């Protein structure tokens, strides 16, 4: 058993693909039409390249309710590791990304939180 796929709900798959590739810098792996929606996955150019993140539609009202409640409470839905959190904060801010928490030390890590424009808060962390 392996962890090879995980997913994040987005309120608009086009917008999600644009943000996760053009702004965050992930690479599109799959974009396959499935009925009304698409199967979209991205990978990180920093690897591992067989670990995929699916950008799922949040069309299910139950999923949407969960997503919105977590968002309103300020809770990030996923966390990505970065090597230079101050650099990423500066780069993403320049791209127009809104942060709800600037980089700050929290025990063994430094973390920051931003909005992914698709209904989620995402945490970045840099291990000490």
């Amino acid at each position, binding site marked *: 058993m392996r962890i090879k796929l995980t997913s994040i709900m987005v309120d608009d798959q086009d*917008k999600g693909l644009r943000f996760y590739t053009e702004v965050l810098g992930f690479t599109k792996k799959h974009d396959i039409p*499935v*009925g*009304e929606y698409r199967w979209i996955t991205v990978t990180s150019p920093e690897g591992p390249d067989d670990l995929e993140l699916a950008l799922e539609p*949040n069309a299910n009202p139950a999923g949407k309710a969960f997503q919105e409640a977590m968002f309103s409470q300020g809770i990030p839905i996923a966390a990505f590791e970065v090597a230079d959190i101050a650099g990423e904060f500066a780069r993403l801010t320049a791209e*127009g990304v*809104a942060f*709800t928490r600037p980089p700050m030390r929290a025990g063994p890590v430094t973390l920051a939180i931003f909005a992914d*424009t698709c*209904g989620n808060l995402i945490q970045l962390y840099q291990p000490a």
Partner: protein
Amino acid sequence: MLLRHEGFRRLCRARDLLRERREPSPSIADLAREVQISPFHFIRQFEAVFGVTPHQFRIQTRLDAARHLLATGHYSVTDVCMDVGFSSLGSFSALFTKRIGEAPSAYRRRVRAMVQVPGVIPADLTPGCLTLMGRLPPSAFARPARNFREA
């Protein structure tokens, strides 16, 4: 842009307000006042957080509600148009067609044929889970060639 707790909370509140059906529908400037952000900053911050302007968000919310009503209910296109908050059938139809890819009447016909039990939305319209995988072509799972096999 950095939003502190209070600023973030106001934007979440604005998102809820934009979903409300009020008669007459408040302007974006009215809503900005209601959440105590200047209209300029309101539009800019909302777009940075939610990826669309408040106006676009409201339109999208109404079109989503329209889709739902057309799929599950027994309402005419005109009733749906009024119910979700559009005042003109023409602009509703034009926006719906542009965004969804087919006219409201065509959507209603096509989707209602998929609904088997009254009131139950077909799974195709609410995937939101990894079941989408089941309908992928085998190529989506293609494995890279293993070196030892080539040897």
